[in-house]
């Protein structure tokens, strides 16, 4: 079994893909029992991490701006306002 990256180092997408592949491998039923238990443990870790990320997700917004030299730089920008207050 190949060495796996720690779950927290994976992006959401990577973790999500690994979880799907892990489940498919388990579903194929071709794994050794020990290996499948290992995969299960890893899958549970991935699930937990993904859930936590969904719960804590905060929108990240940046704006592509030209700096003084005319090169493009990414400037952090405000996330969308989700308040329901009526703006006048």
């Amino acid at each position: 079994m190949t060495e796996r990256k720690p779950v927290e180092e994976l992006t959401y997408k990577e973790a999500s893909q690994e979880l799907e592949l892990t489940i498919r491998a388990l579903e194929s039923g071709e794994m050794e029992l020990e290996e499948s238990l290992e995969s299960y443990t890893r899958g549970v870790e991935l699930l937990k991490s993904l859930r936590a990320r969904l719960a804590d997700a905060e929108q990240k917004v940046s704006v592509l701006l030209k700096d003084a030299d005319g090169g493009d730089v990414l400037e952090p920008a405000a996330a969308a306002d989700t308040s329901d207050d009526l703006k006048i």
Partner: protein
Amino acid sequence: MSTWNLTGAPRSFSGARSRAQREAQGELPWERAGASAGDGGEGADGALSVSQAVALAAGALDALPTLTVIGEVTGFRGPNARSGHCYFQIKDDASAVDCIIWRGVYSKRTFDLRDGMQLQLTGNFNLYKATGRMSFVAKSFALAGEGMLRQQVAALAEKLRREGLMDAARKRPIPAFCTRVAVVTSLSGAVIDDVKRTLRRRNPLVELICVGSKVQGEGAPEELIEALARAAAIEPAPDCILLVRGGGSFEDLMTFNDERLARAVAACPVPVVTGIGHEPDNSICDMVGDRRCSTPTAAAESVAPAIGDLEDLLASREQRLAAATSHTVRSASARIDGWAQRIRSAMSTRLDRAAVELEAAARRPCLTSPRAIIEGRRMELAQTAERFAASTSSFDARRHMLDMAHERLTHGGAAITASRATGLAAQAAALDALSPLKVLARGYAIAYGPHGVATSVADAAPGDELRVRLADGDILGTVASVEPVAGA
């Protein structure tokens, strides 16, 4: 027909008039009228016949230069079934006029006419003398205003379609979950906020990079082209680019029908999702992009699954994970149970067979009753002994007989010899009595000549060896002479 200058600038009637028309119609009516006024006229009171009046009017119309007229089509019923010519009206708010497009002209059209179209028609007025009806006869026509723009857009769309820029095979797949998305639009409008809000609500995991650009008016296509290039050059590259703009008039949205911008969208190295205007709006950028959405909000929603869906997906994966693992464990356990069963049954089969063999062995007589074997042997031995005894039972009788025979033989033999011994003794005595030795003893001798016992003198001759047996020995001598006994 003669050719006409299309500028539509008013010119003098005489200049606009062709020689052919002058020849066909003779002198212009009003010239004639003017002339006749000088001449005193044709009619008594200067009145014209209908034909003259109509001809006058027709001539006046013919004298008009070629005109270009803009008007809305109305009463269009398609080309006449028999002639193929089109008869309808064009109008504006205040006026209307009959319009004719001859079959030959209509057959060269690039679009079908229908009511409500704004047309730009170029042609001349004509008066049909039989009815006095005036018509505008169009020698060419095209869509006017927005219609013309739409026509141009349609032509451009067709051109790009022919080039293959709209082929479904060209469209790149957009990841189901884009986590990094560039938004190319105006940063000052409500659209960028809509996109941000939509994605924040739907899926805050999507990172947004806003790239500002003018989206309408002069220079907008160029700015958008540059913004697309800048967005595509962001490191790391975004998963897709949202090219969006809020609703507007057809003219407002014309920016997105720009050929250069359309080509830039098609050539963009990052997949482009378009959301331009409102639902029914469709721009060329929409057609050449990789995914077309009807509004900016719809475009934003299309790039990532809703967070609720992700939660559902995670829940279903959790179930699958548990199900797959417990299935693996269950099947491993079932396999073990199976093996246990097989081991048990194999062992019990083996043991059963051993037990049967053992029982069979135990049932053998040597083990069940060892005494019986000895008994058997004893009986066999007894039988043998019996048979042996039986086989020697005649021996005693025979011995007795032998004993008897022996006795008889002994007795018989003795008897035989006894009697013979008696006889023999007598005979011996007799024999002894008769023995020549006894005779010799009494002085007799036996002479042996060369030929044995000599019983006659003839048996010996002088010189012969002669042996004379006496009772106690022999006398050897040589015959000296023979003397027979006279009278013998």
